[in-house]
């Protein structure tokens, strides 16, 4: 999955560049306190979106259009084990991605107050399911090239309206209200709470869980193994 050069750009270069650039410059003056403390949880959320949604979605879309999924479906691998192997691939990539980002973050002076590690891990898991569900829903229906464009477009929307660089209350009111209920905003805000305040917003958590359930269910129902 992480074989091609463009995947490396998406999975590693973009999140690291955003983290370094915006923690070292003053383009985001509205952020109170330490910039890196605000940025880090959002960038971790972006990393999850890039792996679970974009990378998984694009590769699955192409595999579908090349008939790879159809053919593997006739082998003992079967469709269930194929999905399981994709899930494990995502987890391996995410672990590497998050480890790298945390190291870079620490070099930039990131020192979270009180981390609730169990809470962070559960949130990452739920977030991953949610974005994988979105990625696979698109991949399971759209033509490979359209899917490629859709995944990248959605990545940008979820990024800009995800409270990752710009806090949602800085956005125009209507846009901010929409952004608040998007899964990227929910995950970045929940992660921020877990790292910096050790608090837990149960409404946001329930909403993220709902997204995850709905998106996975939609992917299972709508997915077509071949065109």
């Amino acid at each position, binding site marked *: 999955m992480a074989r*091609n050069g463009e995947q490396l750009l998406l999975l590693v270069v973009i999140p690291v560049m955003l983290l370094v650039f915006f923690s070292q410059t003053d383009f985001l003056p509205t952020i109170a306190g330490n910039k890196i403390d605000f940025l880090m949880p959002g960038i971790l959320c972006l990393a999850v979106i890039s792996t679970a949604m974009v990378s998984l979605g694009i590769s699955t879309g*192409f595999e579908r259009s*090349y*008939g790879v999924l*159809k053919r593997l479906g*006739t*082998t*003992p691998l*079967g469709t269930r084990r194929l999905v399981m192997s994709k899930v494990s691939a995502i987890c391996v990539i995410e672990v590497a991605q998050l480890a790298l980002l945390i190291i870079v973050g620490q070099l930039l002076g990131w020192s979270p107050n009180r981390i609730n590690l169990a809470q962070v891990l559960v949130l990452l898991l739920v977030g991953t399911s949610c974005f994988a569900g979105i990625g696979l829903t698109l991949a399971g229906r759209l033509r490979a090239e359209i899917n490629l464009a859709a995944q990248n477009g959605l990545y940008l929307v979820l990024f800009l309206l995800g409270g990752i660089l710009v806090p949602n209350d800085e956005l125009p009111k209507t846009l901010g209200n929409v952004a608040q209920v998007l899964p990227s905003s929910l995950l970045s805000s929940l992660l921020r709470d877990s790292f910096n305040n050790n608090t837990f917003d149960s409404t946001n958590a329930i909403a993220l869980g709902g997204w995850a359930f709905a998106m996975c269910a939609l992917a299972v129902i709508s997915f077509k193994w*071949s065109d």
Partner: protein
Amino acid sequence: MSAKSCELRTVMVMNISSESRQIAISVRELIVDYKLLRAVNNISFDAKAGEVTVVIGPNGAGKTSTMEVCSGVRTATSGKVSVLGLDPKKDRSKINSQIGVMLQDGGVYPSARVFEIAQHYCNLYGNRTTADELLDAVDLTQQKKTSWRKLSGGEKQRLSLALALAAKPRVAFLDEPTSGVDIFGRDLIRGIVRQLASDGCAVIMATHELDEAQRVADHVLMFHNGSLVANAPLTELLNSTGENQTLEDIFRSFAKNSPMSKLRDEQ
């Protein structure tokens, strides 16, 4: 394998009583509908172990749809299909380890290399054979490090066939295995197909190349506009006309007499 020894093998295989062979695939009253089209219209047939059953007919006749239902990748609209006594959809996990499938469009990731692909498929079936053996059988040892996208049309077909062989299958579904393949590749593929049948495998092979079908078939299923217009052993079909006719001649006469053709003629 020379053409002569291939013919000899064919004759020997034909001498074994077809009646005594076990039925590997049984299809009854199969219907496959797409949105605006009935692709397969109420067909029934059996395919036996140790035989090459060739599915012939022009493009869009219903060959691939039928093969896909039998290999479990497509759901039938109605009808009953049994492969090795199992339901291709419900018992998919049990059937998948016993069948080899060659799809019309390859189904391989373009950037993957020949050896990697072969190795992967060997692993999927629990290493019943080795990647080297597979590539040797289809004469692709020299192209081991080539990526799928750089293979010629004929090489792609040979590799795709090799992947179906990784299963050491009891039933092999081969969709247009000789399409785009040169004459030497055809000889090689024909040899492999006959060998599969001699080893007791039920081979179902779709093609619209009728001369190829005549060279390799034990049994012929002739499709036209979604219907089965002939279902008979090759020798029986060729003898039925009493003249020295080829499969192509016979197909033309069936197609001409079909209701659709009559309708076209009237118009």
